[in-house]
């Protein structure tokens, strides 16, 4: 894996968004400026697992590599890119410590 075991990365969904899984994709809206994002299937898995307490490396290993045919190094690199982009839009929180107090988002299909 490309993860640095010394400084794990934790990710959590921002409470300032609304999200809904439609089909296999996640649609997310920033409540701040109503910008819309659609996550593909892999990104949706990472998003759903972003509970603030599971390290990104573990999410990639267990969720992404467990469900999709992808090399761990490639998966982690792609996940880091995704996390950076979503964090840049303020819809994902990133820390080197576990993140507490983020509200769970409704994600179920009807």
């Amino acid at each position, binding site marked *: 894996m490309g993860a640095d075991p010394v400084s794990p990365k934790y990710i959590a969904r921002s409470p300032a968004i609304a999200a*809904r899984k*439609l089909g*296999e994709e996640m*649609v997310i809206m920033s*409540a701040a400026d109503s910008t*819309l994002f659609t996550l593909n299937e892999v990104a949706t898995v990472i998003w759903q697992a972003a509970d603030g307490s599971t390290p990104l490396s573990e999410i990639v290993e267990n969720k992404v590599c467990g469900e999709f045919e992808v090399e761990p190094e490639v998966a982690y690199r792609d996940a880091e890119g995704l996390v950076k982009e979503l964090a840049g839009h303020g819809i994902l929180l990133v820390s080197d410590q576990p993140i507490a107090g983020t509200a769970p988002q409704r994600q179920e299909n*009807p």
Partner: protein
Amino acid sequence: MTVTTADHQVAIEIGGVPIRLHTSDPGFVQMLEDRYAGFLSPSAHPQFEFDVDLVAPTGTSPDDDVDVRVDHGRWFLRRGDFHAEWDPESGRGRVRHSPSPYAIDSVLRIVHTILLAKQGGFLLHSASAVRGGRAFLFSGLSGAGKTTISRLAPADVALLTDEVSYVRRDGGGYRAFGTPFAGELARVGENVSAPIAAVYLLAKGRENRMDPVAPAEAGQRLLRNVLFFAQEPDLVKRVFEAACEFVARVPVYRLTFFPDGRVWELIR
């Protein structure tokens, strides 16, 4: 000395919600009665009432940005050509604007977007029509073909609007209502309603064809066409949820159409 001001009033019922407007100007009432003919409901008990103060035109434009915010349950609606305050709890509000129909039309639209957001509905930038007891919505930005498809509607179709559709939750589904909010067709919709059977995302082309749209794309496209003006985060989230719930329950298609009457053969 006591000065009494004559109270002239008109009740406009859209989407089953009667709103009564009070003014001292009988000419303004007459203008509203002409503009909203078919949506007047003089005997209905109004859910909301607004006092309308007409002021001299200020030279500001209806194209100015609109500012809609809530403070302790009281809504403030502002644009260059109007200023309104509204307390949904008491059901009363006040509007100050120049005697143009566009200002009060916008106030009504905004009030309905707020009411609908609380109920899981929304106003959608789309034409809509009823055929065979079922409603069909035709969504798209300006130029997509809303006016064209409305104009092409055959005689057995009741046009609800060519510009702004009124969508309300109705049990496990949704119902579309006619609106007086007209677009280029300049024709007030019919004041009827029907359960919504489908939404068509319009695109002009060389042939008539209908393709299903994946739910996530449908949600995004729909949200881009939902009319909502308030920045209040909780209501914005509710509008998002409403649109997502809608596309999860109502089929959405991309309707590519050649602009002649044959396209309506697909819409039944």
